[in-house]
């Protein structure tokens, strides 16, 4: 927009000519037609920021176009302000609508991570600034400020701020703004314009939304009427925020005094003369969500309270001596029932509707505190079974209490209560099994317990043994608490405070075996999860309670609650209640954010591997994405996203069976993954790494008859210090063993491949050479017992093909030799024929095949596809004769993908090209 507008301005406003080229093209120009009261001519007011941190505000009269609506030119220019203060380039400016009292403001955002508000209300009466400003004053370190005052500064973004926009006035005196940034957040800001130019009045950051991943929010749109914000990120996602609904549902908070006053009890403990003088204060202890409109709370003096959100009303259910000083509270959501654990060993069920209560001993002979209360229920309607698992402080036996509610009575009564003793899964001498989660699958009659140390115990409820013993006990989430267990079909999903969640499949009896089919890290200390169409996770992240949609990886809600160490309760999509500084706080968590379009990587994609329709991509955002190609729409359907790598992922490859995927990149990282589907991926092994090295290329060979059903994998890996290492990966142990090692030269290795007949490896690097090292029997490397790695045998063939880096390489076995197709940094496309038996190589080159580095080469049938950073995709006919080869370009197309890094075939006939984004191409006419 700006680029097309600039020449026109230059012609008409000669005096500013010198300033315009120093304006970074990023700077937004806001055009606003204003009626000039003095001259009554239509003028355009223009604000523009420069790369040197200045903002110029100027206006000019419009010369209307005689034939069509629009502007023919500008005349009578006037510079009103030159606003100085930013310490970095200006990336966005916006002129406000007319606010209360005839005020106009200008907002600017900059490389210096600030948003500044300038009062420009008086621009028409300000003395014009000379157009012949001394250009030598450009650059940073301004001495003078001319006109316009900076009235407010906003801090908060942690990277460059790309855009800023005023919202229409809603409340008198309040000015609201939106900003978008490289730091992935969009933020709303306010300031009180009625304040009299207090210096450094800070813009208040009132709301922050993070729906994108990787880097950058580039674009946004606002619908003021409906209160909607849409944002577009470099990750290709479009996020939508109902910002008005979200920001209007403000937090509520109560001190205990307020609550007690509302329900009409004195805060002093009645009838306890010893405490009369000390004025024992009551305080919030525990919370439980009852339903969408009500939650319950216990207090340190043994009160049980409820709060009704719609009526904004606190009520008291009663006060129990057994709950004084110690209470555990839990609820079966939607039932109206709560369970209570007391300090005298009693467990109680309270009907919050009728007020009826039932108490019993949690365990025979146990009078100490009930340390834990965990609830489950199974079945539906009147046949529903309620379960309470109680633990004591030093537990070797847990008690599973079950009952039903007889709804034929009014009010309903508790019936059929039974207690079943459970032996702790931990044996003598093992770490105590401190229960943190419970689940019961009624169909399989299994009970699952999760522990604080991350282990899982499974019981068979149909067993008649007393106490019931766990038939399985295994460590699932090493060293941190399992917070949720969700039965999912025949398997389960577990979440942990270490941020990990896993899918586990359980093989049928008699040989019960747990298999982790998927495991993924999230940025949360996960406290809970729900699986519906999507998996939703919630927990703590820094000082916030955050809810994440795991499928689309976006933040659904985030509440600044102060951190994890507090009492809290949560009802998904409704509310979050917590204690902070002695007060009970409530925040609504209605879903006000969603993704209109899912995306992929938020930074440059550097690698791709495919197996059938399954696509794995690795990028500079350090993430590994799995997706599938929809055969109908040609769209990528997002699957799992794993973030185990600590730097960019530069190379990826599936084993021929597709069961294993290997990924490599910066810091010398090389990881092995077991892949069952686009949604099921588990880390199986990590190779040794080196922080100074990168892996740009590797290749693999499956080794049949290795240990276990899968067989092992032999890998050859090239590093940036020119070393070549062979590793044998054993799936049964997850261990990479170094079996051969050598050094190529001193240059960085970019590609490395086993030859089609497995009798050697082909290496290419930044020096433009192809080199072959023979291997007599590479598979034997897998079975050798090796005290030391073998040395790499001497090279047999060396052939320089390109002037510099070989950016892309493919190998194909043809009738008359092995053909190597290469793309060079030297813009050339190379074809090399290698006669391995006679150690002869011959090369042909298409110079200037692309206008830039050729970064992707792919064999598609008998044809070769190349793509480069010039965003051209070319399709070549290559005919290999005995005397030489001929090449003809068959087709050439332009790709929308910048910085193309690789191409791969997927689902048979389609080609995926990756770079800054992903292109899917269909090859036509049965090639």
């Amino acid at each position, binding site marked *: 927009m700006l680029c097309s507008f600039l020449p026109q301005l230059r012609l008409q406003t000669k005096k500013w000519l010198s300033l315009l080229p120093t304006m970074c093209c990023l700077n937004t120009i806001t055009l606003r037609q204003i009626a000039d009261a003095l001259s009554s001519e239509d003028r355009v007011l223009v604000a523009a920021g420069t790369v040197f941190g200045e903002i110029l505000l100027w206006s000019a009269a419009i010369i209307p176009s005689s034939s069509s609506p629009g502007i023919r030119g500008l005349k009578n220019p006037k510079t009103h302000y030159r606003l100085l203060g930013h310490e970095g380039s200006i990336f966005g400016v916006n002129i406000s609508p007319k606010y209360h009292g005839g005020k106009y403001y200008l907002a600017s955002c900059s*490389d210096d991570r600030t948003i500044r508000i300038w009062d420009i209300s008086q621009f028409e009466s300000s003395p014009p600034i000379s157009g012949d400003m001394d250009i030598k004053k450009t650059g940073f370190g301004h001495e003078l400020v001319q006109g316009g005052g900076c009235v407010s500064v906003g801090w908060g973004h942690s990277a460059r701020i790309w855009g800023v926009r005023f919202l229409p006035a809603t409340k008198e005196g309040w000015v609201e703004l939106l900003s978008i940034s490289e730091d992935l957040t969009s933020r709303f800001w306010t300031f009180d314009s009625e304040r009299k130019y207090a210096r450094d009045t800070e813009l208040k950051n009132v709301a922050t939304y993070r729906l994108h991943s990787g880097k950058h929010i580039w674009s946004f749109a606002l619908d003021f009427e409906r209160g909607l914000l849409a944002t577009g990120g470099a990750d290709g996602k479009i996020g939508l925020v109902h910002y008005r609904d979200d920001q209007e549902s403000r937090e509520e908070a109560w001190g205990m005094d307020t609550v007690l006053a509302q329900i009409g009890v004195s805060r002093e403990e009645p009838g306890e003369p010893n405490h009369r003088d000390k004025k024992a204060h009551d305080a919030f202890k525990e919370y439980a969500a009852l339903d969408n409109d009500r939650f319950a709370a216990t207090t340190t003096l043994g009160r049980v309270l409820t709060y009704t959100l719609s009526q904004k009303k606190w009520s008291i259910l009663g006060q129990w001596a057994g709950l004084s000083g110690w209470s555990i509270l839990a609820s079966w959501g939607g039932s109206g029932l709560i369970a209570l654990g007391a300090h005298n060993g009693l467990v109680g069920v309270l009907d919050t509707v009728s007020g009826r209560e039932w108490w019993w001993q949690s365990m025979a002979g146990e009078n100490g505190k009930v340390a834990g209360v965990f609830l489950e229920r199974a079945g539906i309607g009147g046949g529903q079974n309620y379960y309470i698992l109680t633990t004591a402080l030093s537990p070797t036996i847990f008690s599973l209490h079950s009952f039903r509610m007889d709804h034929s009575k009014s009010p309903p009564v508790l019936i059929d209560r039974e207690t079943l003793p459970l032996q702790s899964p931990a044996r003598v001498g093992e770490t105590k099994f401190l229960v943190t989660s419970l689940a019961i699958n009624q169909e399989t009659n299994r009970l699952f317990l999760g522990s604080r140390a991350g282990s899982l115990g499974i019981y068979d409820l149909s067993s008649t043994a007393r106490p019931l013993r766990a038939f399985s006990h295994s460590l699932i989430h090493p060293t941190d608490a399992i917070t949720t267990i969700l039965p999912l079909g025949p398997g389960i999903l577990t979440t942990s405070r270490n941020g990990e969640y896993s899918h586990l499949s359980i093989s049928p009896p008699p040989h019960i075996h747990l298999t982790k089919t998927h495991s993924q890290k999230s940025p949360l200390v996960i406290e809970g999860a729900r699986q519906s169409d999507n998996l939703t996770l919630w927990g703590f992240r*820094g000082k916030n309670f955050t809810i994440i949609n795991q499928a689309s990886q976006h933040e659904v809600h985030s509440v600044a609650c102060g951190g994890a160490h507090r009492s809290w309760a949560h009802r998904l999509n409704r509310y979050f209640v917590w204690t902070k500084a002695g007060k009970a706080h409530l925040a609504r968590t209605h879903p006000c954010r969603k993704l209109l379009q899912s995306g992929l990587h938020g930074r440059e994609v550097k690698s791709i591997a495919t197996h059938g329709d399954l696509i794995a991509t690795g990028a500079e955002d350090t993430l590994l994405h799995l997706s599938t190609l929809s055969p109908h729409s040609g769209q990528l359907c997002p699957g799992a996203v794993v973030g185990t790598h600590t730097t960019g992922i530069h190379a990826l490859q599936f084993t021929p069976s597709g069961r294993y995927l290997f990924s490599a990149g910066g810091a010398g990282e090389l990881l092995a993954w077991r892949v069952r589907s686009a949604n099921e991926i588990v880390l199986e092994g990590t190779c040794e790494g080196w922080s100074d090295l990168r892996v740009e290329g590797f290749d693999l060979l499956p080794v049949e008859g290795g240990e276990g059903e899968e067989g092992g994998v032999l890998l050859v890996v090239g590093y940036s210090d020119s070393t070549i290492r062979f590793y044998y990966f054993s799936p049964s142990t997850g261990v990479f063993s170094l079996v051969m090692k050598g050094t190529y030269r001193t240059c960085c290795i970019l590609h490395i491949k086993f030859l089609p007949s497995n009798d050697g490896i082909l290496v290419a690097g930044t020096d433009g050479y192809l080199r072959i090292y023979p291997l007599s029997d590479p598979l034997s490397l897998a079975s050798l017992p090796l005290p030391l790695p073998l040395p790499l045998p001497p090279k047999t063939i060396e052939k320089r093909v390109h002037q510099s880096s070989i950016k892309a390489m493919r190998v194909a076995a043809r009738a008359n030799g092995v053909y190597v197709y290469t793309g060079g940094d030297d*813009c050339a496309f190379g074809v090399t024929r290698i006669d391995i038996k006679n150690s002869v190589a011959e090369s*042909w080159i298409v110079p200037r095949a692309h206008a830039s580095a050729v970064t992707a080469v792919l064999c598609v049938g008998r044809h070769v596809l190349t793509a480069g950073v010039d965003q051209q995709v070319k399709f070549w006919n290559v005919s290999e004769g005995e005397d030489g080869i001929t090449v003809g370009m068959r087709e050439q197309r332009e790709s929308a993908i910048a910085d193309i890094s690789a191409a791969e075939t997927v689902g048979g006939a389609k080609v995926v090209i990756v770079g800054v984004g992903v292109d899917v191409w269909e090859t036509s006419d049965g090639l």
Partner: protein
Amino acid sequence: MGKSSKDKRDSYYRLAKEQGWRARSAFKLLQLNSQFNLFADVTRVVDLCAAPGSWSQVLSRTLPPTSTIVSLDLQPMTPLPGVTTLQADITHPSTLPLLLQHLGNKPADLVISDGAPDVTGLHDLDEYIQSQLLLAALNLATCVLKPGGGFVAKIFRGRDVAIVFAQLRCLFDRVTCAKPRSSRGSSIEAFVVCEGYSPPAGFKPSLETPLGLGAKFPESRRPSGRDKEEEHLVDGVKEVELREAEGGEDSDHVSREARYIAPFIACGDLSEFDSDATYALPEVDEFGQKWKSKDPIQPPTAPPYKTALEMRRQLGGGGSGGLPKP
């Protein structure tokens, strides 16, 4: 990662510190010169976008002391022996008389520019801004270059680089795209080396109506499309005779007319350091002392967000937004 990690991963960074260059980019000009012999018979040179001054340093150390070297930048630059440093805007009309005055009112033999913008990450935009910067440098070069003079500038080899090559070929006899070994292979950066300045008859350079903005490029006298130029092939490979496109679709025929793919040449010997490779650090320095990582010659300039970083630190890392870093 320790202080020496960058020394291992970037040998030119280490060498620049050890040889006293202000930036590693000095090696790029040295390697370009070894390939193109840029400084032969050159006495008057203009260095545009010169700060922090590593290219001017190369000129200062390489050219005879009688040479005239004028360096321009918007930012102030530490002085160098034998180099006139001017703080000026290369697009401003008043810069031209100032520059000519310092050149003794004689045309320059060579204009060089290593200028690049702060990249945003939006590739189209970054490539566009880089080409605008190159055009601004070219425009000033046309105002001061003698016929037959040379022009060297940084270029981003992106989507429309062939348009820039075609534009440059309107004004120079020979346009080559060069990539020194000291420029990272993973970077989009390369250098355009233009030799034999020969503007078409009637072409009037001007800063008032710069090329590309306001003024059109002159018609090229050179034949369009591919012509028989020397290809820089490595020894022992054969150039393929390209068969004409076999009735395949050319989606964008018209705009290809305005494009030209310049011949490519990689500069710097293969025995020199590879900027993409990781090297073991030397055990002893040139004086036989135990090798130690050196500090850069010029400390990096304070980033514009320095104040923001300080504020964030005071707030305890979380910042006022309370979100962890992405």
